[in-house]
């Protein structure tokens, strides 16, 4: 059985690369999209990209702390979803087609 045919074993580098790609997509999306709901999903994407990196590194280093951090991030993300979605829904209810750029009343 040649090395080429052998199923490649995923290493932690793969996971880290995937995390980086996901993070970049999230960050880019946050910067270019105007729909608040989509921007919100981009933030979630970034958070989960970081979560993936935490878990991969925790396994790699044999340290449980990384996985603990993930639990914290999940809790924070859940809280954020509650507050953030509440705000976004109430905004969209008042101004159905609002983009993020329209919400600039608090500028200095």
């Amino acid at each position: 059985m040649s090395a080429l045919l052998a199923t490649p074993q995923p290493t932690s580098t793969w996971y880290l690369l995937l995390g980086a790609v996901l993070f970049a997509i999230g960050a880019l999306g946050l910067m270019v999209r105007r729909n608040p709901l989509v921007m919100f999903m981009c933030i979630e994407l970034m958070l989960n990209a970081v979560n993936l990196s935490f878990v991969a590194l925790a396994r790699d280093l044999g340290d449980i702390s990384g996985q603990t951090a993930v639990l914290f991030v999940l809790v924070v993300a859940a809280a954020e979803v509650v507050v953030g979605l509440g705000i976004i829904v109430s905004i969209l209810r008042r101004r159905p087609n609002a983009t993020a750029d329209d919400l600039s009343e608090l500028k200095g």
Partner: protein
Amino acid sequence: MLDVVWLIPALPLTGFLLILLFGRRLGEPGAGYLATLMVGGSFAVTVGVLIDLLSKNAEERAHVETLFSWVPVDSLQVDLAFLADPLSITMCLFVTGISALIHLYAVGYMHGDPRFSKFFLYLNLFVLSMLLLVLGENLLVTFLGWEGVGTCSYFLISFWHERDSAATAGKKAFITNRVGDWGFMIAMFLGFQAVGTISYGGLNAAAESGALAESTATGIALLLFVGAVGKSAQLPLYFWLPDAMEGPTPVSALIHAATMVTAGVFLLTRVNPLLEHAADWAPTLIAIVGLATAFFAATIAVAQNDIKRVLAYSTVSQLGYMFLAVGSGAYVAAIFHMVTHAFFKALLFLGSGSVIHGMHGEQDMRRMGALRVLMPVTAITFIIGWLAIAGVPPFAGFWSKDEILLFAFAKSPVLYVIGLITSLLTAYYMTRQVIMVFFGEARWKDQAAEHGAHGDATPHESPGTMLLPLVALAGLSVVGGFIQLPFADELHVLGKWLHPVVEIGERDIHGTWAYDNKYLLLVIAAVLSIVGILAAFAVYQKRKVRAVEPVILEQAWYYDRGVSGFMGGPGRRAFDALNWFDRTIVDGAVNGVGRLVRGSAGGVRKVQSGYVRQYASALAVGVVLLLIWFVVVRGIV
């Protein structure tokens, strides 16, 4: 009686409060007699304290009575404390004694005034302040009294404030005094900074022990002298005193002749150890300023026609003598002259008040004359006062002036000669006044029709309440000089009494040429006074010589006009420039800081655009930059 020394100022305070509360109900003459009684009570207590002090040894004649701690701030501990020693009790004796007489006189003089009780309210407040001034054991208590007498002086000069000139004169006196008060305050600060206390005991002890540097002692002494110059109307701040004559005559007699204006001399005597340890030029400067004032004011008095202004300039001149004495180290002579001057100058002022009262408010001596027949008691007492101030033996002024001249000679013959010329001028202008008022022809008859306030234009003698103080003061002016006679050391009663207070500063002139020839100097002084009197007699009575009264002297060397011209012109512009500087440069700097912050904040504000995506981009750029920095610059992988 020593522990009730606080009663001396407390009694006028009681009088002040009673008149303040019940003044209107007491009315005339109740308020006047109440005020007189309170000051008389003070005098009685002072006599009691004096007897107590006399029963002690000379060295133990100083008693500090602390009432309470007034300003307890860390190392600055100031008590409201009174010092009863020979100097303060001497001052208290003549302040309360003469005040009581003048209060009594004022009962008659202020008759019919609509604000009768208010006048006595101020008078009692004045006596209270003056007693605080002399009894204070530290500079702050003295300063309280110092400001108090200044304020009362302002109230009383402008007592008839319906008259524009009186209101202006009051302001002038107050503002001029503030210039001097500045010196007093700085002296207090300097004393506290250098010694850590402002009590006289502490300051004088520091000067004696040498703990105080000579330069600091000079600074404190001269700054106190600045205060004294303002309060005692010396050059260059003398010009408020002649204007102060706008006040009622009892005020001129009490405040602007006998008591308040002597406060400066008192203060310098109180700190004589400081002056002794100051640089040598400091006392010399004081002597020169005093003598210059004495001479300057005497020349002006020669050409004045207002009966009170002559006396005002004469007061300035006599105060100059006292500063000459202080500068010559003759503290006893200064106090001696202060006492005799208080007697005869109060007498002269009250006499002039009696004349003004009898003339229905006329003050111009050119409209008087031959009043001796109509006002015999006033005339006789005024003549006694005249002889005393002119320096005719054996009246009081002769002895005190002679002692000052003796010390001046021991310091420098130049001082003596100018002092002697001044005493000649004094005799001259006082004789001129007496002749113009009481002798010659009656020049008031042609003005008779204009006046007639009482329905009868003829001048009349004053009531008994006014004459009694005149007689008492005349008696004192005759015998007042006997408390310090030059013939033997045993006759130096005042000198022995004051010795514990002034022993550091008092100059010993035994063995100098002046002391060995003191009888010669006595004779010269007496002869010169008589020459002055005869000269004035020849000019104004016999009319053998034409009177020399140049306009420049009548206008007081244009000094007053010069000061107001300067203050109104270049001075005003200088202060306008200062004002501009303050508003543009100082305020500009402060406002500029504010404007700068506001401007830059306005710029920074724009960063907060409200576009969430921009914030996100900024964050991303920041993270990337941080990463680059960590990896490339710090080398952390």
